[in-house]
């Protein structure tokens, strides 16, 4: 399994840099092992948004952290697509420009994968193929309704 893990690590790493650049419109990102032996070590994320110096990922802003995590999730998706995926308000910390980039990339991934997203963002609603509305007209009781944008 050491070999397989090693291969998967390389595969994810290649895509992580690409997806990060697509979502941030530049910059770079990579995964690094904390030790020599793959089986024993953890995984560090080293990344920098465009024009910034490489730094500790804890200094990233709320939106930058979310977008970096999304880039990593999407790159794993590209290696091993999950039959379906559920994303609950992952766009909440993002500004309008980053929501747009996230939506564009999601639309591309959705050619081969099924996504269920929960969102309060109108831009994300407009991009979806189908909308399911939930209301509590009767307090405490959830009902499914059709939604027109």
């Amino acid at each position: 399994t050491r070999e397989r893990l090693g291969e998967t690590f390389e595969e994810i790493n290649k895509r992580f840099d690409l997806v990060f650049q697509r979502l941030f419109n530049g910059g770079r990102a990579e995964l690094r092992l904390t030790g020599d032996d793959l089986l024993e070590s953890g995984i560090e994320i080293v990344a920098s948004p465009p024009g910034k110096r490489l730094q500790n990922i804890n200094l990233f802003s709320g939106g930058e952290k979310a977008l970096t995590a999304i880039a990593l999730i999407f790159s794993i998706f590209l290696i091993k697509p999950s039959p379906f995926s559920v994303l609950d308000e992952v766009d909440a910390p993002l500004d309008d420009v980053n929501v747009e980039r996230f939506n564009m990339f999601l639309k591309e991934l959705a050619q081969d994968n099924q996504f269920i997203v929960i969102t309060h963002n109108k831009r994300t609603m407009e991009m979806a193929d189908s909308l399911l509305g939930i209301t509590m007209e009767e307090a405490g009781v959830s009902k499914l309704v059709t939604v027109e944008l």
Partner: protein
Amino acid sequence: MNIKSLTVHGFKSFPERTIFAFPSGISAIVGPNGCGKSNIVDAIRWVIGEHNTRHLRGTGLEDLIFNGSETRKPMGMAEVSIVLTNEDGRLPALYRNFTEVEVKRCVYRSGESEFFINKVPARLKDVVELFSDTGIGRRTYSIIEQGQVGWLVTAKPEQRKAMLEEAA
């Protein structure tokens, strides 16, 4: 393999039998705060085998069953069923001949819990096995809960390792 539909009845804030159809592509679930959107995510996680109610924002089994509102009484049971299409044959060999597979899970206030796969009684172990190899089984990268998106970035390096192992 996609989710074709999800049916909830008596689960959390859904006392009425409600059927969600999920076409391929992107389905967006929308609605005001507290209307029950994240409860649908909990229903999906529960029916595919999540056995720890704390991971479903509850403290015990009774938090999964509709516990009443100002106009309705609490219910005695919750059931969720999910229908998956299998045209890419990604499900384990046992289910190769089926174009669709339905997994159903019920729980009663007494604490009893039942599973059915294509209407045949099954065990939790059968359901977990059904999903384990598809990438859905474990929770790290295919189902992202509310407020957890940054988890992969703020996690410790060892915790990120589980993600790699799953994708391998």
